[in-house]
């Protein structure tokens, strides 16, 4: 059983290598993705619910360096299991959307597999070094893919922006992580040892700042968000799905896994700043999203905006010193839900573009009549994204909002006694309205009306194989929406 996490990371890399050596691309990639879904399910089945929190199961480790202590170690706990499920589901769907009609499908499959392997490695690593290292596996494929096959006006400029931005962000993160480890007595990169130790309180403030900026850049925290929307808009569909859906959660996962438990004092110092920044994500970027006139840019911005809610969950966690299980559950649930829903939306946007060649709202319209299945699925994705009950996003957002009010007696507390966190949560709630405005408007201009305005054709209705990746994602959203316990049971 210990070898399963290793296998999960190795399979996509091996598949990518095989495809590089001329193995049939689509078959190999799909087999790898399905194998990973099955292995992940196996881990879910065998997961020991009685194990105490913070213990990595199915753990294996190979010592690499003594001083500082680094090992190539993999393992799973509840948090990483949820991220693992998100990754394998989105990977399966994103690989499926790569059609053989694209230019150089082989490169598409290899890149998507490597990005996925990077995310899997990061989520399954129980050593901070490799946790960081695997995440960067996506850097070069993303750069090459956006530059070669990007859409929009100037994909190459976008490719440079994302690469330099994320490169710099991850270097800052690296400095922060190294400082974090070096300010513990054991100086070990092993997560279990690290999480069991205490970080020098004098150094906490600056380490926390480095981690917030470093992880924050990767998650597109306001004001480090400007790379994200253009990059997602420009990237080929599978890359945007994996990047926005999965890879971006790495930063949040890192903050929840390392920064919150280890840097209680340090994070508390920046908590109010974090509230300002996350409101920047929700309200400012939210309004920017409303102003978008292209579907891909709108989705990119909406993805940036929704990061704000998860940061709100993290802020609630910080405020309670890490002991707010409602906030933790809500944040992880929303990470999963957002990952699936944004992947679904980017996949649908890719399909709309494939069929009509357009993504500007003014040139689309009436697609619901031509492609009813697409309309239904887009509606599901849009409702999920707004946070309507019945979808996983709703459950996550609700838990986060409630968690911000933990310990506040409803009705008895005068408004004046609410803290910054509570006010931020109240302000953040307006984000839901903003989401509704842009999502419904997008739906209206793309799907409602009689005919497409740009004089475009939509082709024949979607066949089953085209629909399948969307269905997988939509089903995941609805099932988790109705039964969030499917995921939350792993958090204990």
């Amino acid at each position, binding site marked *: 059983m210990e070898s399963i996490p290793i296998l999960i990371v190795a399979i996509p890399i091996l598949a990518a290598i095989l495809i590089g050596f001329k193995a049939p691309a689509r078959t190999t990639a799909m087999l790898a993705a399905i194998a990973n879904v099955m292995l992940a399910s196996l881990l879910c089945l065998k997961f020991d619910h009685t194990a105490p929190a913070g213990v990595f199961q199915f753990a294996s480790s190979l010592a690499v360096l003594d001083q500082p202590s680094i090992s190539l170690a993999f393992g799973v706990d509840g948090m990483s299991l949820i991220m693992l499920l998100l990754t394998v589901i989105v990977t399966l769907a994103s690989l499926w959307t790569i059609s053989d009609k694209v230019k150089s499908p082989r490169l598409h499959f290899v890149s998507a597999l490597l990005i996925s392997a990077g995310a899997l490695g990061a989520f399954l690593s129980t050593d901070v070094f490799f946790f960081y290292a695997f995440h*960067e596996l996506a850097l070069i494929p993303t750069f090459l893919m956006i530059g070669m096959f990007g859409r929009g006006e100037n994909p190459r400029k976008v490719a440079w922006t994302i690469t330099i931005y994320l490169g710099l962000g991850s270097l800052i993160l690296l400095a922060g992580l190294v400082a974090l480890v070096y300010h513990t007595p054991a100086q070990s990169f092993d997560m279990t040892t690290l999480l069991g130790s205490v970080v020098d309180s004098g150094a906490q403030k600056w380490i926390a700042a480095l981690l917030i900026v470093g992880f924050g850049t990767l998650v597109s925290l306001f004001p480090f968000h400007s790379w994200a929307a253009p990059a997602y808009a420009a990237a080929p569909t599978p890359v945007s799905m994996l990047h926005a859906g999965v890879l971006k959660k790495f930063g949040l996962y890192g903050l929840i896994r390392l920064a919150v438990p280890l840097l209680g004092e340090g994070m508390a110092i920046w908590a109010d700043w974090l509230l300002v920044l996350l409101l920047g994500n929700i309200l400012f970027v939210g309004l920017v999203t409303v102003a978008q006139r292209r579907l891909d840019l709108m989705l990119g911005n909406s993805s940036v905006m929704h990061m704000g809610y998860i940061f709100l969950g993290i802020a609630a966690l910080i405020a309670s010193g890490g002991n707010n299980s409602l906030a933790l559950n809500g944040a992880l649930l929303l990470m999963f839900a957002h990952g699936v829903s944004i992947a679904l939306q980017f996949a649908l946007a890719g399909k709309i573009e494939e069929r009509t060649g357009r993504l500007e709202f003014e040139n689309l319209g009436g697609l619901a009549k031509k492609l009813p299945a697409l309309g239904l699925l887009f509606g599901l994705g849009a409702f999920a994204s707004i946070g309507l009950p019945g979808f996983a996003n709703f459950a996550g957002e609700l838990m986060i909002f409630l968690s911000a009010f933990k310990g506040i007696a409803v009705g008895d507390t005068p408004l004046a006694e609410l803290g910054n966190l509570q006010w931020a949560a109240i302000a953040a709630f307006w984000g839901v309205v903003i989401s509704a405005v842009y999502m419904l408007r997008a739906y209206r201009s793309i799907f409602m009306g009689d005919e497409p305005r740009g004089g475009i054709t939509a082709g024949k209705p979607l066949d089953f194989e085209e629909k399948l990746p969307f269905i997988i994602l939509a089903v995941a959203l609805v099932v988790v929406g109705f039964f969030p316990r499917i995921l939350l049971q792993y958090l204990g």
Partner: protein
Amino acid sequence: MPAYILEFLLVGFGLILLMIESFTTLKNKAVLGKLSAAALLIVFGLLFAVDSSADLGDTFRDYYHTDSAAIFFKGIALLTTLSVVLLSLDFLPVLRRGINGPEEADKGSQGGIGEFFSLPLFTCAGLMWMASAKDLVTMLVALETVTISFYVLVASMRRNVGSLEAGVKYLILGALSTGFLVYGIAWVFGATGTLSLEALSAASPEQWSTWAATPTLMFGVVLVLIALGFKVGAAPMQLWIPDVYQGAPTPITAFLSVGSKAAGFIVLWRFLTPFLASEAMAPKIILILAFITGATLIIGNLAAIGQSNFKRLLAYSSIAHAGFLLLGIVSDAPFSTIGFYLGAYLLMTIIAFAVLTVIRSRTGSDELVAFDGLAKRSPFLAFALVVSMSSLAGVPLTAGFWGKFLVIAAAVDAGHYILLTIAIIGAAAGFYYYLKVLKNVFWNEPDEGIDLDSQPIGITTKALIIAYTAGIFFFGIYPTPLFKALEEPAPAAQTAQR
């Protein structure tokens, strides 16, 4: 077997090659290159048979280190030289034209090839001896063996103006730096009365405070630092690098970039160890080094951004890497960090030069535009460049990342936050200029006029690229073997030696 046998063996092989060239009539002197490679391979094999605890006898005991750092760097020197010789075999057509002029070369003239393949053996012997230098005179002599053979190698394409220009520049600046070195050594000797670095290490704190009381010793140390700065390409002594790298024959550029730099760093490290261990001298030296480091990081990384010639880009990249290595030394990183960094640097730089050698001999150009659309013309070379550039840029899971990571970790540990900031900005700039190469390779369309398949890539070059690419990934994920090789033997043995 004591380690110094290897150097003698190598010099012997070099002499034999020269004899073969003089006394036989070879139609195709490429065979000398193969013999040279075979000699290097034999010595590399023997490196593993070296008994590092063997008694060196009175002749060598005080002049010659056989610690793991020395052995490791002998390995680096041998591998670099072997790679250079193998690349030269693929570069032979260009080389023959450069040495003999196009008309003569077309007639089949083989002039100068024999020397070109035997000189690297002497250079390598010098590099290996440098790694073992225990005192300043041995250091100087070994360094000069290397430098003098490099003067010839750099200028060897004598019908090529660029190569000659590079040769002259290298000669003048190299001679200048030798002057600094000798002068500096004289001052150090004058101040301390010893040339032995071991004796300096063993000196008592009182002795150090007497030495440090007057500026004499410091003056000598600074002169030596300037001279070694030339060798490793530290700012502001880096000015020669871009021009010389650009003009020298491509395999020799690789040799300069890896071999010369690695040897420079081990000498720098050996020289600085006693001074950095003394409380009286260390703060001042660290301050000087910190300025040099900051300047090297800034100049190397920022100047690389604007380059459109691949060789010049690699030249500035080598300056940038010198900056990172210096940061390691300033931050008092353990020697394994420096050693590992240089080992990784060897792998990734040689791949880059191997690809460049192929491109140069097919297209006649070193410019980045010559790489346009390489992904379509030769997926193999394109992949090799992806690996090499990612590793140079420090993308995780490559060997290059470990080097940068350990240096950054050392800097965090030492608390050099200003230098760390510069290094991080520099590394981010690195993402730009290394990926710029990949931009040409993947994004740009190939120039139809240039046919890459006209000559297949030489089997040795191909094997070299495959082996080093595998090495980058292997050591990127599991660097332990290299760290084990760099580990000092148990400290008990060391004190017994003293």
